[in-house]
């Protein structure tokens, strides 16, 4: 059978780096093909070439035996290639139908479009009302908007970039049902992920990239996750291990924390209650947009809360400013690296000053000690293996994983009593993620109270002693992780938000 898409010897070089080096790949019609690799392995470049966003330097692409040379995404779409990006490109203030119309070359009349959307969404078990405002949708529902936008163009090949990173386990199951149905109808799917268990459950074949080259292919069902991971990384993986440690007194005590939503599309916190002891790692799971950012802001001091809601070692912390909280030893690292945890255009030295001033003694009576700050930045770079030419480089020049190591390292090296992190390993490659998780475990072993907010359930299962779920701004009662399995956690996260599986 002719493959649907055949890539032969695709090469693309950027100044100083070969993003793709003679990549060869075949996808049959209806095949679900996984593209595996760490950050920077060349997955994005490869799919951008298929989607017409990047022109290859050499090599050929064939679609059903005919030459396929997409000059832009429009050409790719008309050849039957659709793509769902990891980051949604949707307008919060517009309705579902309006958002979909914006992505089409020649949108039909609104009423006809709404009918089409309803039809597609019913066929593939993706319930979605065309009239709803996107700002009110959950992340899973937003993804459905993107998927339906692609399906309306009747694609032969659907490219999905990390589609499950924002979904609950139940939502993932529903998505997989949809993808399997599409596959059964003959639509091929190129599925990018680094969640190996998902790939084993879903995909028919996998191609593994490392350093821009294809380093292996396998049948995921017959290959263990560990073997695939080691192919990706190219070496054996160290699993983070918690040292035996005892938990001590309650360090952080949050009682009845409530706060109004900071913006129209934010989430209010409702009666959040938990305690963390010294040496304890509390994992807080939840789908994005359920109050994670707001919870971190309340703990870091960015948004003040009413007296008595947050206390540290028995003292009330609620109305204390961020800087003073750091002085006491309550540190945090927000999710958004660029623009929130770090200032993109400022150097790493200046970014080390951002949170290190009080606790590292970098500022004495308001006067800044830059040599000492530089030394602190250099220490972070050395101890956390941050790949950068030096502390004078701007934060934005670092790759996501390296900047994340810097941000986490900046807080960990300040010897916190309490550390709150949000999405500590989001978009970070496996080796760096393992290093970050290990540093969090070491911190707890040293007697700190650690709160990890994350959407990566595997991560939370791996490092947290107790688990609680954040859903619609409410936090469930924390339970010991050892008593839980993924199914139970999924239900704690709010299940599948009342949506149903595809009717095949």
């Amino acid at each position: 059978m002719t493959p649907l898409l055949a890539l032969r010897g695709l090469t693309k070089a950027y100044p100083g780096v070969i993003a793709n080096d003679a990549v060869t790949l075949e996808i049959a019609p209806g095949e679900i093909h996984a593209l595996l690799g760490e950050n920077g392995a060349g997955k994005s470049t490869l799919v951008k070439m298929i989607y017409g966003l990047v022109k290859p330097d050499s090599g050929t692409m064939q679609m059903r035996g005919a030459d396929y040379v997409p000059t832009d995404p429009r050409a790719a779409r008309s050849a039957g290639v659709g793509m769902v990006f990891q980051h949604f490109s949707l307008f919060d203030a517009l309705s579902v139908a309006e958002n979909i119309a914006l992505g089409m070359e020649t949108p039909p009349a609104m009423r006809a479009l709404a009918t089409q959307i309803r039809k597609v969404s019913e066929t593939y078990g993706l319930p979605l009302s065309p009239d709803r405002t996107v700002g009110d949708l959950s992340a899973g529902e937003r993804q459905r908007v993107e998927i339906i936008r692609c399906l309306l163009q009747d694609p032969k090949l659907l490219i999905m970039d990390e589609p499950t990173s924002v979904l609950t386990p139940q939502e993932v199951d529903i998505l997989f049902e949809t993808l399997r149905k599409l596959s059964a109808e003959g639509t091929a799917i190129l599925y990018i992920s680094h969640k190996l268990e998902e790939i084993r459950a879903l995909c028919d074949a996998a191609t593994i990239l490392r350093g821009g080259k294809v380093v292996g292919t396998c049948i995921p069902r017959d290959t263990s996750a560990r073997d695939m991971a080691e192919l990706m990384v190219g070496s054996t993986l160290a699993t983070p291990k918690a040292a035996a440690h005892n938990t001590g007194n309650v360090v952080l005590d949050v009682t009845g924390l409530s706060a109004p939503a900071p913006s129209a599309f934010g989430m209010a916190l409702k009666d959040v209650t938990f305690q963390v002891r010294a040496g304890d790692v509390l994992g807080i799971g939840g789908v994005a947009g359920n109050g994670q950012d707001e919870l971190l802001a309340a703990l870091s001091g960015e948004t003040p809360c009413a007296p008595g809601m947050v206390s540290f070692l028995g003292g009330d912390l609620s109305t204390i400013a961020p800087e003073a909280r750091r002085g006491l030893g309550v540190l945090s690292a927000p999710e958004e690296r660029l623009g929130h945890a770090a200032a993109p255009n400022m150097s790493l030295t200046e970014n080390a000053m951002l949170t290190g001033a009080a606790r590292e003694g970098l500022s004495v009576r308001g006067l800044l000690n830059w040599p000492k700050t530089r030394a602190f930045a250099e220490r972070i770079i050395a101890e956390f293996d941050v790949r950068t030419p030096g502390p004078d480089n701007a934060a934005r020049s670092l790759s996501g994983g390296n900047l994340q190591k810097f941000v986490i390292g900046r807080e960990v090296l300040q010897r916190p009593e309490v550390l709150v992190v949000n999405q500590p390993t989001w978009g970070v490659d496996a080796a760096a993620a393992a290093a970050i998780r290990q540093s969090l475990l070491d911190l707890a072993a040293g007697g700190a109270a650690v709160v990890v907010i994350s959407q990566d359930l595997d991560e939370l299962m791996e490092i947290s002693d107790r688990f609680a779920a954040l859903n619609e701004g409410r936090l469930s009662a924390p339970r010991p992780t050892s008593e839980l399995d993924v199914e139970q956690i999924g239900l704690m996260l709010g299940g599948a938000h009342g949506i149903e599986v595809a009717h095949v």
Partner: protein
Amino acid sequence: MIRLEARPQPSAVMAYATPVLAVLLTMIFGGVLFAVLGKDPLQAITTIFWEPVFGEFAFFYRPQLLIKGAPLVLIAIGLALGFKAGIWNIGAEGQYIVGAICGAAAGLAFYPTESAFIFPLMVLAGAFGGWAWAMIPGVLKVKFGTNEILVSLMLVYVAEQLLASMSLGLLKNPEGFGFPGSRNLQQYASAHNAELIAGTGMHWGVVAALVAVIFAYALLARHRLGFAIRVTGEAPRAAKFGGVNPGRLILFCLGTSGLLAGLAGMFEVSGPAGQISIDFNVGYGFTAIIVAFLGRLNPLGIVAAGLLMALTYIGGDIAQSQLGLPAAAIQVFQGMLLFFLLALDVLTNYRVRFGSQEVA
């Protein structure tokens, strides 16, 4: 085809090169403008840039450089602090006027008593006036989220009406034969901001400008508050995460820029201008915006930019009288400078590539 490619880091070279390029481009296109107006462009440019410093009457124009440069630098330093933090005080002209009114009023209240305390009191009053006028947009922004650009700009027109009212009413010279305008402070020794060294143009405003430059430089380079200003301008959320209180920072930046503008007005009215009159303000508060950007919001750069703008003011005056260039042409010339500077700014963060289009 020409396209722009993002630089991984802002270019340090370009940050310093763009002001020079902007001045050169302004000379070229200004020359074209003068040529179209039927003047010899080369002569016009030399009249503006050469005559005041090295010409026949340079002994007269050189002191003017300090007299015109000092208020520009003093105001621009304050504005730059705010601009760096993304707080846009466009109303320095109004704060300058109110500072002048308050300073002059404080002095005139004691007329004709002579005392060494009067001038310092006027300095305090001028600073307070400018500060208070800038606190109006500041407090409105912090309390109600109003736009400080609009409020501060509109308050300029309010201040101009206030100035007219003062010249015709409360501060009018009782011995002025009915002419609008206050008593001339140059004739009131205790209130006169006289030249410190005769024939140099050096007055207390120049001293204040230099002190402000040093203070601002140290603040931005070595103080926590200066760091807070820079982080807020670069990434407001990161600043808030780092512990900056945005409301307090807004009040500090607007208050400081108002205070310095008020001081500039006070030194002007008690020195070079001499009296409160309807046409007392000549646009220093607006020109200072150009000075702040031309100087890269950097205190030392602002000194150079302030002197350059003072030069175009003086040279422009000469060109008007000697070559008959219209005043509007000189203003267009000054405006071009800001235009080219802002346009060239793109080169700091992007490099220009020639060649075929390729999307990455």
